[in-house]
C-alpha cells in the first residue's frame, strides 16, 4: 500500500554552513550558521527592514528520545512553534526564515540576533558593574511590550517570557523568541490549564499561576514583563525563588518559596486588593508562606526596593541619567497581584514612562541609540565538549556542548551512540 514515504526536498547542509553551537535546551540545540546561497537574488531579506540577513540561528529539534532512529511524531511544542512562527510577523518578534524538514529531523532557521537580554544583564552585572542606561532600558521595554501587544492581539499568550528568550540584534532591535510554549487562547478546546501543567520559568511566573489558577490570561505575560523590567534595573532576578519539584505522585506542588520571594517585596496578596484571590485553588496554602518565611510579614515594598536599586546603580558615576519616576509607577502596575487590574500590553504602551508628560516623547526602536559602549558578541563555541546536565531557570544556555553538528544522517548518529 502507498505509505507516503517522506523524501526531504532540502538538506540543511546544502543550504547553510554551521559556524558553531549557541545553546541547548529540552527541545534540542541552536547553532549559528551562514547561508551558502551567495547570489544576491537568493539572499534572504528581512521582511521589515528589507536588508539581507547575514547570519542565522538554526534550531534543531531533537527527537523525543535521543538516538531515536524512527519517526516518533513531532512534539506538540515544536508543532506550535512551527505553526506560530510561520503565521506571525512583527518587528519585535524573531523572524523565521524557513523550516527544513529532513528525514526525522526538523530545523527551524531564524534570523540571528547577536545578543539577548540575559547576556546584556550579565555584561553589566559581571563585567563593568554599571547600570543599563535608562534610554536602553526604556527602548527594550517599549519594544518588548509592542511585540507582546501584537501577540496578544493575535490571541497568543507567550507563556515563557524571560531575559534569555528576548533577543537583541546588533542594531538594537528587540526580538521575542522561543514560542515553544506559546498558545492561542481564543475559546480553547480545553481549559488552558489542562495542557501543560507548568508554564513560565519559576522566577517569572505570575502569582495567579503560583496559586493554581486554571483560566489564566495574557496578564501572565505582563507579570513576566514586570519581572524582566525589574531585572534590567537591578541586574538580578527580583523574585529569585527555588522551584518545588513534582513529587512521585506527579502532583503539582504549591510553590511556597517563590510566593515567599514575591511577598518579601510586595507583601502577601490581600483579598481586598484582589477580589478573586479566595477563589484560587491554592489559596489555603497562602497562610503557610509567612510561617516558613518571616520576611513576608515585614515586606520591603516595591518603592523602597526601587529606591535602593536606583541608589546602588550609581547612575552619576556611570555618566547616564537615571530612569524617571514613571518607571516605578509602570513597574508597580505590571507587578500588580490582581491579573484583572494588572496593565494590559496596550495600556502599558500608553503609560507616561513611554509617552512622556507631553504625550509625544518618542521611544527609539534602537535600544543602543546614543550608546558609546558596544556589547560583546554572543559566544559561539566550535569545539566539541560534553554538555552539562543541569540548567538553572533563566539560564537555559549551556556553555560548550556536545557538538554533533548538523549531520542528521542516521548512520552517523548510530555510530556515535553505539
Amino acid at each position, binding site marked *: *500500500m*502507498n505509505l507516503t514515504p517522506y523524501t526531504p526536498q532540502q538538506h540543511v547542509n546544502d543550504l547553510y554552513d554551521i559556524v558553531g553551537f549557541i545553546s541547548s535546551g529540552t527541545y534540542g540545540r541552536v547553532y549559528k550558521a551562514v547561508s551558502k546561497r551567495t547570489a544576491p537574488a537568493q539572499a534572504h531579506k528581512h521582511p521589515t527592514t528589507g536588508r539581507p540577513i547575514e547570519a542565522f540561528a538554526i534550531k534543531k529539534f531533537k527527537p523525543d528520545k535521543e538516538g531515536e532512529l524512527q519517526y516518533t511524531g513531532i512534539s506538540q511544542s515544536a508543532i506550535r512553534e512551527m*505553526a506560530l512562527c510561520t503565521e506571525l510577523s512583527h518587528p519585535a518578534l524573531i523572524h523565521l526564515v524557513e523550516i527544513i*524538514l529532513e528525514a526525522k529531523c526538523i530545523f527551524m532557521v531564524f534570523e540571528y540576533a547577536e545578543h539577548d537580554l540575559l547576556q546584556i544583564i550579565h555584561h553589566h552585572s559581571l563585567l563593568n558593574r554599571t547600570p543599563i542606561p535608562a534610554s536602553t532600558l526604556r527602548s527594550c521595554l517599549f519594544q518588548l511590550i509592542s511585540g507582546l501587544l501584537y501577540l496578544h492581539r493575535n*490571541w497568543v499568550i507567550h507563556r515563557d517570557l524571560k531575559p534569555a528568550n528576548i533577543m537583541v540584534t546588533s542594531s538594537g532591535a528587540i526580538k521575542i523568541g522561543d514560542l515553544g510554549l506559546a498558545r492561542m487562547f481564543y475559546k480553547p*478546546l480545553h481549559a488552558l490549564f489542562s495542557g501543560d501543567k507548568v508554564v513560565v520559568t519559576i522566577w517569572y511566573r505570575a502569582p495567579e499561576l503560583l496559586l493554581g489558577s486554571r483560566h489564566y490570561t495574557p496578564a501572565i505575560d505582563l507579570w513576566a514583563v514586570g519581572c524582566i523590567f525589574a531585572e534590567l534595573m537591578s541586574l538580578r532576578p527580583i523574585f529569585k525563588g527555588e522551584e518545588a519539584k513534582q513529587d512521585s505522585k506527579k502532583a503539582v506542588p504549591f510553590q511556597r518559596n517563590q510566593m515567599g520571594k514575591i511577598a518579601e517585596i510586595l507583601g502577601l496578596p490581600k483579598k481586598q486588593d484582589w477580589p478573586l484571590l479566595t477563589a484560587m485553588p491554592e489559596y489555603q496554602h497562602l497562610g503557610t508562606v509567612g510561617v516558613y518565611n518571616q520576611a513576608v510579614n515585614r515586606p520591603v515594598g516595591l518603592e523602597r526596593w526601587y529606591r535602593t536599586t536606583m541608589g546602588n546603580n550609581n547612575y552619576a558615576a556611570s555618566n547616564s541619567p537615571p530612569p524617571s519616576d514613571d518607571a516605578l509607577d509602570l513597574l508597580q502596575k505590571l507587578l500588580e497581584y490582581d491579573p484583572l487590574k494588572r496593565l494590559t500590553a496596550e495600556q502599558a504602551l500608553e503609560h507616561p514612562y513611554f509617552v512622556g508628560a507631553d504625550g509625544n516623547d518618542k521611544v527609539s526602536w534602537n535600544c543602543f541609540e546614543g550608546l558609546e559602549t558596544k556589547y560583546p558578541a554572543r559566544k559561539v563555541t566550535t569545539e566539541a565538549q560534553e554538555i552539562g546536565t543541569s540548567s538553572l531557570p533563566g539560564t537555559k544556555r549551556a556553555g560548550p556542548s556536545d557538538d554533533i553538528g548538523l549531520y542528521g544522517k542516521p548512520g552517523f548518529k548510530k555510530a556515535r551512540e553505539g
Partner: protein
Amino acid sequence: MAANYWDSTQAKYWTFTNAELAEMRQELADSEQQHDLSTRFPLPDRRLVSIYLQHNLVRLAKRMSLRQQALATALVYIKRYYLRVEIRRTNPYLIMTTAVYLACKMEECPQHIRLMLGEAARQWPEMGVSESSKIGECEFALISTLNSRLIVHHPYRSLAEFTPLFGLTGDEQTLAANIINDSYNTDLSLTSAPHIIAIAAIFLAVVLRPTGQAAQNYTAASSPASLKQVGPKLGKLVDWLAESKVDMGAVVDATQEMISLYEVWEQYHERICRESFAKFMHTANK
C-alpha cells in the same frame, strides 16, 4: 490569526479562485497522465469522495471523543494536501489518520501516536499500517506539503459571533453549524473567507428552519416555496448584509455551492467509494 484572518497564511497562501483550483487540479492530472491512473481507477465526484472521508473521520472522532474543530482542521489539511498530491498515489486512510493526529496537536487536544494508530487500524483494517513510525513519517510529508502553514480559521467562530447579532435560536444555530460541517465537502474552505461560509450557512439555516426540515433534506432550500415562508429574521439578515461590507456575491456563490452539494449528496453510496479506494490501493501494493 484569530483576530486577523486577512493577515493569515490561510488568506494569503491557501485561498484560491475556482479557476485557480481547476488549473491546479488539471496540472496535477496532467502530470499523472502517463500513468493513466484516473482512467484505470475512476473515482466518484470529488464531493462524494469528500463525504466518504468525512463520514469515516466522524466515526473515528466519535470513538476518540475528538472535538469538531480538530476534525474540521484535519479535513482542511486533507483538502490542501490533495490539491498537491494525487489521491490515488496515497493511502487515504493513513493520510486521514495523520491529519487527525496533527490537527489534534494544533487544536490543543493532542493524542498519543500509538493510540492514534490503534484506533485508526481498528476502524480501517484496509489501512494496513502497524507501526506508528509510518504516521510519524507521513506527518513530515503532510507538514512539508502544507509548507508548515497549520493554523486554520473556521466558520464556527463567525457563527458564534453572528448568533446573537441575528437573534438565531438554538435550533437555527445548530442547523447552521451542521451546514458548516457539510461545507467541508465542497471547495469552500479553499475559496472563501470563514465569515462568508458562516453567513451562507446562517442564511440556509434561517430559510430551511420554517419548513421544519433538517439539513439532511437537501432540496428544500432550492425550492422557491420555502423562501416565501421566511419571516422577519431573513429580512434582518438581508438588511444587515446590505449595510455591511460583506461581499454579497461571495455569499450567494457559497450558498449555491451548498445547495448543489446537497443535490450531489443524493448520489452518495459509501460502498462505491470504499471499493474504488480499495482498487487503487490494492494495485499500488503490487
